[in-house]
């Protein structure tokens, strides 16, 4: 099945103004009607919590109301409708979008992806021994560069039964396991996407079920650092990062948000195809991060450290 990845996530919030300000400062572009788009038109949509048009909420604190998956073509939609129609109601709306619940009870939908194809440069670097990545006199550190999320990268759920959840996406929708944290859950990618993961899950008690975080891909590590630093300057709460994950290799920087979920910037994720053999390790801090910088007030090397020293804090665990 040619599923590409998350196309749009719909939230029902009680603080539309704060959530709007957050998503705008994060770098998404308001497209009207509560939609906040990345460069390729993948999006987060905000609605009032009591909006009658929203699918029902989970009985938990999670504010995520709908995960819309983007697929390549009508044939895939038809295949999904036939497959899931065998054991649950699948509703088709006027636009042709399919809606149902997954086996964990999350409200999900499928549509032909609204993504537009991006044609943008990667981060360009100079590396001794390699041909210069940037033209002569082209500057790498540009304080004023735009830093806009390019595309919705992945979503992570807290689920009460990770095997049930994972098997639904693997057996019914053709997702592939790329790597696994023992006792936590697999990293999954769908068939029309080579990204290391578009979906990850963490086993929790049922009263925690919901979204743990969502992430958008940035151009590269420099843009991620630029965007994250701007969030910190605006007073937003950095939760974890910046750093680089081991599984997936992606750079990360997580922020807390008024949507009641972490919102991550990521960059430079590994890509895999059918030749890849999954790895499995127990989950702990060392497995989750290759390295971690904490965002501290800048100071010159050799200059005075900030008052109170530079003792690095420890980061919470998580993917």
């Amino acid at each position, binding site marked *: 099945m040619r599923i590409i990845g998350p196309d749009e996530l719909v939230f029902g919030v009680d603080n539309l103004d704060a959530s709007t300000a957050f998503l705008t400062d994060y770098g998404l572009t308001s497209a009207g009607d509560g939609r906040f788009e990345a460069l390729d038109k993948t999006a987060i949509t905000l609605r009032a919590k009591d909006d009658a048009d929203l699918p029902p909420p989970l009985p938990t*604190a999670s504010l995520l109301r709908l995960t819309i998956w983007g697929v390549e073509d009508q044939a895939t939609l038809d295949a999904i409708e036939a497959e899931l129609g065998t054991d649950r109601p699948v509703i088709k709306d006027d636009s042709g979008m399919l809606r149902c619940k997954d086996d964990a009870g999350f409200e999900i939908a499928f549509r032909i992806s609204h993504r537009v194809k991006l044609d943008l440069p990667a981060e360009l670097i100079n590396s001794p021994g390699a041909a210069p990545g940037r033209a002569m006199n082209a500057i790498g550190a540009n304080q004023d560069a735009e830093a806009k999320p390019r595309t919705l990268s992945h979503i992570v759920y807290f689920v009460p039964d990770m095997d049930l959840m994972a098997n639904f996406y693997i057996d019914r929708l053709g997702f592939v396991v790329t790597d696994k944290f023992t006792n936590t859950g697999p990293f999954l990618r769908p068939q029309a996407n080579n990204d290391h993961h578009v979906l990850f899950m963490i086993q929790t008690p049922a009263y925690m079920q919901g979204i743990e975080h969502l992430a958008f891909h940035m151009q590269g590590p420099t843009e991620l650092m630029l965007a994250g630093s701007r969030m910190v300057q605006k007073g937003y709460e950095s939760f974890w990062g910046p750093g680089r994950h081991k599984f997936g290799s992606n750079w990360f920087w997580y922020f807390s*948000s008024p949507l009641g979920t972490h919102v991550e910037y990521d960059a430079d994720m590994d890509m895999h195809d059918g030749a890849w053999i999954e790895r499995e390790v127990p989950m702990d801090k060392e497995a989750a991060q290759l390295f971690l910088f904490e965002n501290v007030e800048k100071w010159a090397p050799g200059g005075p450290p900030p008052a109170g020293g530079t003792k690095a804090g420890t980061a919470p665990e998580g993917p």
Partner: protein
Amino acid sequence: MTAAMQAVCALADIPDGGSRGIWPNARGQHQAFVVRQGGQVYGYVNNCPHYDRARLGWKKDAFLNGPGDRIMCASHGALFRITDGKCEIGPCIGQSLRPIAVRVREGHVFTEPPH
């Protein structure tokens, strides 16, 4: 008032019905926060019971949900009663924020250090 109590801000620095981060550490992260309801001020350690060392807010001084009737952990949306810090819904349901002693005197707010 115990000797350990320290002035953290003026009462007027906390909007009525709002919140404010206090006790910044060396890296500017607030170790506690206060919530004001009229003349009443409640103080809690800025640590979510769900996750070791997780701070609650999503922005400087933003510790409440939209209507301002609950303390919210922005990490996973846990909601806590303002008056006693008990989590009513969320990953730490039934657990409580750790309170810190607060006194309001002559327009100033004093609290014990977060512990």
